[in-house]
């Protein structure tokens, strides 16, 4: 009889230990078994570290004057009116896009640019059509069709007007790919709209 009483007690108490942490609010992450195995002692991404206090020489930036292997050379024009003017002469360093690259560039455009500029480049994206983001460039207009590739790259890199800088989100190569894609689509549409020399005459120097 005594034994069964003890058993009772044990049975009644034991789930409490396990249920209690589980019952806490879902605003808390809950308990873990063996936290040493769960939480790494090595530093994880985005986790705070105290390397500096420990005297460890660690820099999360690339060494100055170096670039990643296979990367394009950095864009050196400054973010001012002179840089903007000079950017017209910057040539697209990429060879013409292959069909696979063009598809990838279109995908990147649709992810990063189309929310404002619209998938048809007519400034009718989900954010701009409803008027949430004003003053979005309609890339099918003549002044954008005629805009040199370098100027486009400059604007994407540093931002222009209401547009922010996309340098943190897209690599140099991806930005140039998108510029190539925009240009080829603009030319294709301009070509379809006006087969005569109406638009192509002015943009020969930037091809």
């Amino acid at each position: 009889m005594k034994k069964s009483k003890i058993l009772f007690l044990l049975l009644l108490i034991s789930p409490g230990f396990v249920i209690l942490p589980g019952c806490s609010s879902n605003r808390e992450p809950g308990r873990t078994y063996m936290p040493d195995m769960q939480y790494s002692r090595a530093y994880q991404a985005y986790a705070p570290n105290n390397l500096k206090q420990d005297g460890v020489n660690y820099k999360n930036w690339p060494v100055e004057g170096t670039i990643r292997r296979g990367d394009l050379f950095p864009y050196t024009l400054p973010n001012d009116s002179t840089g903007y003017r000079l950017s017209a002469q910057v040539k697209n360093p990429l060879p013409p896009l292959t069909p696979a690259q063009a598809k990838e560039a279109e995908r990147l455009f649709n992810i990063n640019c189309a929310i404002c500029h619209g998938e048809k480049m007519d400034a009718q994206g989900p954010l701009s059509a409803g008027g949430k983001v004003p003053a979005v460039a309609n890339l099918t207009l003549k002044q954008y069709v005629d805009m040199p590739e370098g100027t486009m790259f400059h604007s994407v890199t540093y931002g222009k007007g209401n547009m922010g800088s996309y340098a943190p989100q897209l690599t140099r190569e991806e930005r140039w790919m998108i510029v190539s894609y925009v240009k080829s689509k603009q030319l294709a549409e301009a070509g379809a709209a006006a087969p005569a020399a109406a638009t192509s005459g002015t943009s020969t120097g930037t091809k």
Partner: protein
Amino acid sequence: MNRIFQRCFKAVAVVAFLMLVSPQLSFGQDGEALFKANCSSCHKPDVKYVGPPLKGAREREPEKGWVYKWVHNATAMAMTDPYASKLREEAGGVVMTSFPDLTNAQIDAILNWADSFQPAGAAKPGAGGATVAPQSNHTVLYGMLTLVLAIIAFVLLQVNSNLKKLADEHDNIPGKQPVPFYRNKAYLLVLLIGLFLLAGYFLVDGAMGLGRQQGYQPVQPIYYSHFVHAGVNQISCLYCHGDAQNSRHANIPSVNTCMNCHMAVKEYTGEPLKRADGSIVDANAEIQKLYNYAGWNPDTKTYDRPGKPIQWVKIHNLPSHVYFNHSQHVKVGQVACQTCHGEIQKMNEVKQFAPLSMGWCINCHRTTNVQFNDDKGNGNQFYSLYEKFHEDIKEHKYDSVTVEKIGGTECGKCHY
């Protein structure tokens, strides 16, 4: 004669073609279409936007025909013309883009349309609050049924024992010493077994839940609604979390990414937002929090104080003895974000959708088909290396290959 006819026909054909394909050249001016293509990103017909409303623009202009000059070369006008420089000041020093290609007739068409514009009736509130189908909770139902059955069984057993006692007394069979039910060994045994099972269930359930955070929904430093951003505004997941396709981690977007849109988007105008506890969120105050983190001054449109990082709370935590790579799943496997994260675009505050347990991982690896490259170039080129599978598929040994077949359930794939 024939040649002249042919030439005429050609000329007519060219003109007709140009009229068809080029809206710039078409003679029937569609003011609304022209407005949408050229003006709508900065102007509204009836209210002030970036620029002034277009309605009645010709009544306000200082002299007749002024608007044509302004549209054709706004930059030069803003330097010289007094009314133009006044407009520039009203717009906060921003000069309108020039549209030298618009003809006077087209400008008239736009302004005519704007003058006759009638705002549409108050837009119906969209189906914002999607009704969730009430989930019938079977567990409660089964529990109640079990309880009722147990009570009936208990009553019947009591009735049975009482009847037996009566029958025994009737037959003059000496009954046993009556035992109260709470000392009845049979009852105690049943109760013991029941408690054992119940305790075992909670013990196992609780123990398995250790280190698992399904449903975890922490309070974030800024009330950021994925429903508004990814759902209503249709921003791609990869716009902010683009590194999910390039690296192990789906990055937390930098404040710069937020400011890409929030330089322009200063206030929230949608349906009121609620926290999980039901309290209403002051969305504009949350946007102001972002400006404080970024050090952005929305009035002067400059970063005029030092920014500081936003310490978002990480929701999906894998133990450090598991390796998980986002790019492997998002880019190579073409798995949609929602497969593991749930319908993020419908969550105001994100909570962990999947258990992130090993069984959950393995189940998906067992059932998910690898997207082999097909003749049309869909799927992943990398899997062309798996020649044996391709041959087997050709020989109709099987028609698809799961992740498990290419080693997706081997220990070393994730634990190393």
